């Protein structure tokens, strides 16, 4: 049944409708694959075989009745930051160990309405704070292409579940790069939609002016299929847009001739790995050969995205994580007074990176510092947003690397926060500007570790990114199953 897991969602959907196999069989294949590779990879905090089998059974009944949506009966994995009714949701933190949400996130409601099959809750950096999955309080997740290396983060387990064929697609969240960077490091497709495109209702909040939910998949069209299911207005999230959702699937296959693509000189910097620059430049040349028109552009405040992000994000984190006190949910700890009990629950329940960010935000928002840090960072955010607005007057999309390096060794950055933060240097600016960003595989380094091309679009123009990414993918071999043979599961660590 191994070959079933190499199908695209379209192929699997067709097979289910022809009766070549059932969702139950597809699901058993995914569960068997997970059982085989989890000891090496560690994608899931919680595998959910019981839920998966029940959902597959329901999907098969629906498929038999006809008129089922494309995602009906398709196994998917969900980042453990997204609430699933009755199924433990930890945010990768000890403080939420055993927490069972009493409602589904809006994105889960939508996937369930289409009949998807939940195979597991995937590992992440604690409360989505990290770039390597190493701040998870539960376990490490390993890159399937190099078991001694990180998968990226924070949605690391969502990326590896898809890369290692444990699921056909997965959901992640992206605040400063948490979908795009792990997609790049794990050789899969990932999409962070425009801020406001997908509801965050039921997604444990990190930095509310930045957080978005988006899909991972093994190819561009599968990614489009999942985003079409997720996108659209939800009255539970006041930032979600009532704009109609275009067909992202239809964008896949449209001609890219005449599309102007900006290549920002600030994204080709000293310190990036030569293999990354080479692969990204080759990808741009490939798109040019398909008819896109590359234009060199400048995004002059790029260099300030990192310090801007590391003021704004922790300020919002310190406010959002104030709710975790061990009383209504979460693991309580004793203390002499109520305040001491709070401090103990939080001090023992949160890991080091979460504490660092809460303290940074608390400090930056405290009396006497608010204007110097928070307000100043919000003003620089305007400059960064304006850089893109100017660029998008002349180009239709921006092309650049997703990460300055390929997957780095486990443990190599975890004790040095600023070095770790630099892993997201290419994804932060688009996040601050609220723009859609997509990653598509564009090659491998000399050690067979994947490299990703990042495409950034105008607000609400995800379709343009799908158009470019699909044209690129179809004309290159990087998404082919043959390239996933480079995965080194069960080999020497």
């Amino acid at each position: 049944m191994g070959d079933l897991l190499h199908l695209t969602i379209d192929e699997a959907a067709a097979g289910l409708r022809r009766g070549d196999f059932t969702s139950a069989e597809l699901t058993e294949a995914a569960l068997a694959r997970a059982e085989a590779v989890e000891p090496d990879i560690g994608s899931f905090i919680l595998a959910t075989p019981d839920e998966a089998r029940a959902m597959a059974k329901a999907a098969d009944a629906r498929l038999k009745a006809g008129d089922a949506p494309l995602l009906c009966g398709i196994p998917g994995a969900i980042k453990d930051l997204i609430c699933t009714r009755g199924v433990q949701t930890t945010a990768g933190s000890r403080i939420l160990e055993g927490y069972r949400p009493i409602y589904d996130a809006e994105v889960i409601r939508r996937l369930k309405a289409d009949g998807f099959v939940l195979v597991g809750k995937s590992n992440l950096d604690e409360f989505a704070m990290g770039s390597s999955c190493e701040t998870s309080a539960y376990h490490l997740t390993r890159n399937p292409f190099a078991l001694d290396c990180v998968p990226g983060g924070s949605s690391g387990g969502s990326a590896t579940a898809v890369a290692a064929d444990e699921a056909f697609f997965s959901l992640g969240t992206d605040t400063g790069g948490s979908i795009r960077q792990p997609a790049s490091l794990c050789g899969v497709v990932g999409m962070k939609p425009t801020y406001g495109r997908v509801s965050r209702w039921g997604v444990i909040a990190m930095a509310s002016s930045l957080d978005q939910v988006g899909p991972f998949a093994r190819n561009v069209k599968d990614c489009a299929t999942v985003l079409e299911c997720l996108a659209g207005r939800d009255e539970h999230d006041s930032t979600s847009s009532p704009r109609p959702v275009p067909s992202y699937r239809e964008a896949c296959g449209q001609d890219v001739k005449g599309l102007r693509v900006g290549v920002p000189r600030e994204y080709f910097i000293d310190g990036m790995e030569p293999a990354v620059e080479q692969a990204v430049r080759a990808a741009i040349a490939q798109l040019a050969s398909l008819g896109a028109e590359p234009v060199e552009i400048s995004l002059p405040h790029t260099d300030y995205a990192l310090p801007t992000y590391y003021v704004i994000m922790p300020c919002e984190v310190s406010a959002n994580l104030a709710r975790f006190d061990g009383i209504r949910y979460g693991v309580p700890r004793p203390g002499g007074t109520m305040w001491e009990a709070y401090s103990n629950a939080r001090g023992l329940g949160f890991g080091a990176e979460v504490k660092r960010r809460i303290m940074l935000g608390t400090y930056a928002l405290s009396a006497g510092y608010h204007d110097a840090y928070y307000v100043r960072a919000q003003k620089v955010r305007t400059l960064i947003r304006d850089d893109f607005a100017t660029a998008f007057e002349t180009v239709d999309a921006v092309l650049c690397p997703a990460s300055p390096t390929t997957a780095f060794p486990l443990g190599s950055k975890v004790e040095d926060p600023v070095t770790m933060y630099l892993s997201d240097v290419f994804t932060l600016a688009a996040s601050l500007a609220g723009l859609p960003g997509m990653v598509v595989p564009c090659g491998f380094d000399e050690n067979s570790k994947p490299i990703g091309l990042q495409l950034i679009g105008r607000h609400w123009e995800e379709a343009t990114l799908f158009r470019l990414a699909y044209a690129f993918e179809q004309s290159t071999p990087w998404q082919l199953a043959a390239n996933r043979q480079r995965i080194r599961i069960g080999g020497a660590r």
Partner: protein
Amino acid sequence: MQLSREEVTRIAWLARLALSEEETTRFAGQLSGVLAHVQRLAELNVDDIEPTAMAAEAEGNVVRADVPRPASPQDEILANAADTEAGAFRVRAILEETA
């Protein structure tokens, strides 16, 4: 920008985070490193720039109609709490009695 251990202790109390001695020392160094990095924002002249609070114009940022609808059942809301009593969350006394 060098944060002292005393400042770290004060911030941790504001954030209600109990820290060990070792954490207080380690965080003083690490937080100082991050603050030093973000000082770069002071290089820019932002006098005439308006702050941006949201990532994109919040198009959907309207309140919904205020109509009654079913809420989650009380027993479900309490199900994740460690300590409940008579259909409510049980917490420690907020006000202390004075002798």
